[in-house]
């Protein structure tokens, strides 16, 4: 989130989603989930009370990373995997900027995994939107670090052999203090999650399940299909019981014997309403288990999974600098150059073998 410096209300209240659409032709494949995410972001930005010129979209390389070109804000389409480092530099230079980082599963977790780890650990105040489509789209369909085991792709014709990464588990492991999930086409849910991500001061990690209709079509259908979404999704609300099912008849219970979450139906087999867990965004252990839920009996957790505000890196840098300045006094270049031992050589001594110089201080 942006530091609440004085904001020109005149210029922010009149903004509409259209004000955030650039004049560039969008070049994603027809039917790509990225269109819906673009729409959601353009819908959310005018509601945040931030002047347009303060928004900066930084991206890496990949389909998702074309995003900045389609926004009429400041934007920087950088190099593969490095957007977190570039965005960190932007924030260190100007903390007043409202920086959004757009990345994908390949960009953010494969080539850029190291930078993602460190930007989360440092807790740099950014909104990080990771479009997870479980495939490399722009390079024509190779498997990605989030592709399911056995994925058949041009580079793995007999099926992929390496275990996939769970982005939200990775983020939690890296020390992220805001971890959330949503779905590309669920504009209302996604907009609410983005609004909360923006309100969080620090690195806000949002995984967006994004359908690649060309190379990995339907990868998330098993839980995103509206027809059975109520049974396959767990919409998390802080302080509310974790209920799901056609009529909310099911719930999530902690099983202390197996140390894991399980789906239960209160009223059956001695399970009561009290057994259903209440979502607590600040519970990191619970967040880790929620991230890992993935069928066949368990729903996929969506919404804000974890939120625990803590020291933000750029702010800490500024505070430390101010404390240092208070201690050592004002900056003075000449004083710096003269610090320590100096000596003066005078004009009249400017002869070989003469009496020479005197220590100056």
């Amino acid at each position, binding site marked *: 989130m942006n530091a609440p410096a004085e904001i020109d209300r005149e210029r922010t209240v009149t903004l509409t989603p259209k004000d955030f659409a650039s004049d*560039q032709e969008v070049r994603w494949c027809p039917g790509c989930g990225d269109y819906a995410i673009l729409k959601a972001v353009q819908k959310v930005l005018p509601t945040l009370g931030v002047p*347009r*010129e*303060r*928004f*900066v979209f*930084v991206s890496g*390389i990949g389909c998702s990373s074309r995003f*900045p*070109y389609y*926004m009429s*804000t*400041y*934007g*920087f*389409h*950088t*190099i593969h995997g*490095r957007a977190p*480092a*570039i*965005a960190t*530099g*932007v*924030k*260190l*230079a*100007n903390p007043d*900027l409202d920086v959004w980082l757009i990345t994908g599963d390949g960009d953010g977790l494969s080539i850029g995994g*190291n*930078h993602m*780890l*460190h930007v989360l650990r440092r807790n740099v105040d950014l909104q990080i939107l990771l479009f997870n489509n479980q495939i490399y789209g722009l390079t024509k369909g190779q498997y990605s670090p989030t592709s399911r085991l056995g994925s058949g792709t041009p580079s793995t014709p007999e099926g992929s052999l390496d275990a996939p990464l769970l982005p939200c588990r990775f983020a939690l492991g890296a020390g992220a203090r805001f971890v959330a999930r949503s779905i590309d086409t669920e504009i209302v849910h996604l907009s609410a999650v983005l609004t909360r991500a923006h309100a969080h001061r620090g690195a806000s990690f949002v995984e967006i399940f994004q359908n690649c209709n060309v190379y990995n079509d339907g990868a998330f259908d098993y839980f995103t299909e509206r027809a059975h979404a109520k049974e396959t999704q767990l919409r998390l609300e802080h302080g509310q019981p974790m209920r799901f099912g056609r009529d909310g008849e099911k719930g999530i219970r902690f099983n202390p014997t197996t140390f894991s979450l399980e789906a239960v139906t209160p009223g059956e087999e001695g399970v009561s309403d009290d057994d259903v867990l209440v979502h607590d965004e600040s519970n990191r252990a619970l967040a880790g288990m929620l991230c890992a839920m993935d069928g066949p009996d368990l729903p996929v957790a969506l919404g804000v999974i974890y939120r625990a505000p803590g020291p933000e890196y750029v702010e800490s*840098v500024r505070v*430390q*600098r101010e404390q*240092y*300045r208070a201690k*050592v*006094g004002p*900056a003075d*270049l*000449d004083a*710096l*150059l003269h610090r*320590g*031992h*100096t*000596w003066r*050589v*005078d004009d009249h*001594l*400017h002869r*070989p*073998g*003469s009496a*020479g*110089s005197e*220590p*100056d201080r």
Partner: protein
Amino acid sequence: MSAAEERLESTLEGEHRELDSVVIRFAGDSGDGMQLTGGQFTESTALSGNDLATFPDFPAEIRAPTGTTFGVSAFQINFASHEVSTAGDELDVLVAMNPAALKTNLLDLREGGVLVIDSGAFGARNLKKAGYASNPLEDGSLSGFHVVQIDVQKRVLEAVEPYGLGHKNALRCKNMWVLGLIMWLYGRDRAPTVAGIQEKFADRPEIRDANLAALNAGHTYAESAELAEALPAVSVPRASVEPGLYRNVTGTEAMAWGIVAASVLSGLEVLFASYPITPASSLLHTLAGLKQFDVTTFQAEDEIAAACAAIGAAYAGSLGVTSSAGPGIALKGEAISLACAVELPLVVINTQRGGPSTGLPTKTEQSDLYQAVFGRHADTPLVVLAPSTPSDCFEVAVEAARIATRHMTPVMVLSDGYLANAAEPWRIPDTAVMERFAPRFAAEPEGFHPFARDPDTLARVWAKPGTPGLEHRIGGLEKSFVSSNISYDPANHQRMTEVRNEKIARVARDIPAQTIALGPDSGPLAVLSWGSTYGAVHQAVKRVLADRLPVAHVHLRYLWPLPSDLESLLGGFERVLIPEMNTGQLRRIVRSETLVDAKGLNKIAGQPFKITEVETAIREEIDA
């Protein structure tokens, strides 16, 4: 009688002899504190008015096993009553704190030179570790030198006994004892050293007092009649230098202060983003302690992130600086190309070391010139500068920032391990007269597009995020010359590539005319140098000129683009000799750019050139 013999005579005879120059090397175990001893002696030598140059030479291992040859750390200083620009070729005095230090350094001691030895460290164990079959103190192998044996260990233990430090800590005062002895030998004032020790150990009075006691004990010992006979005191008259206020400075300090000065002169905040690597890390450490200025340091997770953070800062309107040594610069390559493509200012400092790969981390080399000029994918020209001396790092850092922001381009600065660690006296500049170069950020939305160019420099506009009405997108994709939008148009790519090239070529209009550092402006031979070889080449040319032989010294600060008058200047000479600490990288560039058929003198030993090496090559060229 040769000069060397004369010097030996003057060392051995009489009470207090005068010399015009002395080269001393302190060598010991890496735990013996030789760098501290050298640094303190340098400080007092500078204050006494001699010109000087130093060369610290330490192992890559942090705590190598004691007594081993690979754990030897050395510090060399050359001080004189005349201009000095190298740490000296041959040693007049070698201080060897153990057998390993003797073994690894004796070759550099001149015939008849003075050898100060801590005989207390020459036990059987240490002799064996150093690989000596017999004790050199007893087998006559040192007969060509003037050997002064002192059981330093024993005397130090006596001197610091009252402070109850324990054997190990007491022995750590050995370096101060030796410093006291050498200070007496050259008539140095101990007061600044005493003040330094008092400050450094203010919180640990027993350590402070023990060090002071050791320093004074060494001094007193030297004063004793017995030693004065064996090792008479000498004095080196003050050097004749430009009037002004002086201080000592290492290349690292000068570079750091240059970056601070660039911030002050441009009015820009600096983001210095780096990742630890020898021998570049000390620049990060120095700047991290200067937070009172508008300089933020950022230790990134890797070299790539460091370059990228600096680029991000530049995009947001700061001066982005990143720093490393050769291997790290290679990692930054793709990011530097991005900076070339989006035409953002960026200063990249490469403190070169011996390579390839991990190579010689603590040793010096000039082998990243190709990498600087050519080492990126695609056509990505940028500006390359190189400082010539430790103090020149200050000016070059400022110049790099000026060119980067004026021409909207990355600028690579090629320092090296020698420059970073070496020290010399520096006439402190008057910052009030230094050129200000505040950039003009775009503010006017009318007709704005991000790659609109200055017609003279071809530099694009610099528009900061946060400026109302200038919202725009930049990126690594090719953009239209006309609109800045993404463009894959063939003719546009040709045009943009040519414009990026021409923009860098035009930097040559913004740099001073190439000068001749020494000697005639035409003749049979010019010696062309760049970077830290300046000192050795300069002195070599000076010596040859003193014999009235025709040779000139030309030194390059601007390596890309080359000065536009270089070709005509070199055309005035029949032959051109290029000494380099690589296999001939500048030679090939000069040949391809000027068609001058230069000859190379190439040393790739991890050590700077000796003056005599360059001098011999020059004389051979003249005789050829």
